[in-house]
């Protein structure tokens, strides 16, 4: 039997889920058509927060094992989560404008805490690439990711315990406050966005692995050429395709990006 590729599965899941949003799920009585944003914004927010936690766990695995693959996975998980998180933030803001009449409400703990988490992880990349030594870079980034990840459940509980909020609470201890058709549609949308996360994660991880192999190959080729000595181990890759021998070294050392 032929296996279905992950991108195809993701595309199909997105089509089915958002087809259900517009053609199966009923229009909510209170909010009307604007509630359709819920099927996009909430899965994005959930997947983002889960992605941050997954990135933190992967960072923990790196600290435990010292295997650089876990560091790369953690980096990619946090990067993809950040992209989806920005989507969640913008779609939430659009919903707030339509529903509350304001793009942003600073008194709302859910919004502000989500923004804090997003801004926290926005600091991950500048922190990471400010450190030149690849080993230290990976270690510091892992500690940062782990701390940020631990902050998410604490933050979630704190927001839930806050007395005054205007943000709708769909999922409560007593169960989901949704009719079945809306619940099924929401689960389909959540699954589709989760698949989108996995697809982006795998794609970016493969692209990074390919670039790492390419840099290693460039170093090897450069070392084999008589005219030019091999570049330093963690230095930037030699540029190929110009110069008399076909390979030229960069004029000055450039800060390292190990990923």
């Amino acid at each position, binding site marked *: 039997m032929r296996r279905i590729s992950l991108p195809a599965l993701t595309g199909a899941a997105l089509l089915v889920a*958002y087809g259900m949003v*517009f*053609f199966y799920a*009923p*229009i909510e009585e209170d909010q*009307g*058509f*604007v509630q*359709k*944003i819920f099927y*996009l*914004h909430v899965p*994005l927010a959930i997947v983002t927060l889960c992605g941050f936690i997954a990135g933190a766990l992967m960072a923990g695995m790196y600290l435990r094992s010292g295997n650089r693959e876990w560091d790369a996975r953690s980096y990619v998980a946090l990067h993809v989560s950040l*992209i989806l998180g*920005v*989507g969640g933030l*913008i*779609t939430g803001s*659009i*919903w707030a*404008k*339509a529903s509350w009449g304001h793009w942003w409400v600073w008194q709302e703990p859910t919004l502000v805490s989500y923004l804090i988490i997003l801004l926290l992880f926005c600091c991950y990349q500048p922190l990471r690439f400010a450190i030149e030594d690849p080993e230290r870079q990976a270690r510091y980034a892992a500690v940062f990711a782990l701390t940020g990840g631990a902050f998410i459940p604490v933050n979630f509980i704190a927001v839930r315990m806050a007395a005054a909020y205007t943000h709708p609470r769909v999922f409560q201890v007593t169960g989901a406050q949704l009719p079945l058709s809306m619940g099924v549609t929401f689960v389909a949308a959540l699954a589709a966005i989760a698949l*989108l996360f996995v697809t*982006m994660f795998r*794609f*970016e991880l493969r*692209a990074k692995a*390919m*670039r790492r192999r*390419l840099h290693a*190959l*460039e170093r090897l*080729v450069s070392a*084999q*050429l008589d005219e030019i000595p091999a570049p330093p181990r963690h230095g930037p890759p030699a540029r*190929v*395709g110009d110069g008399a021998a*076909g*390979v030229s070294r960069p004029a000055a050392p450039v800060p390292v990006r190990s990923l």
Partner: protein
Amino acid sequence: MPALPLGDAGRYVAMAYVVLLALLALYIGIMARKVARAERRMSELDELLRQREP
């Protein structure tokens, strides 16, 4: 099949979905550019090695 209302609500819903599509398109575009650059460098290396072969 529910009728899609074309009022203010429709505008906001469209805006939210277009934002996500645009974000994804941007991401795919940037990643595709990076992969294309890596492929180009790979073929340059391949060509270089081919030239060095006796």
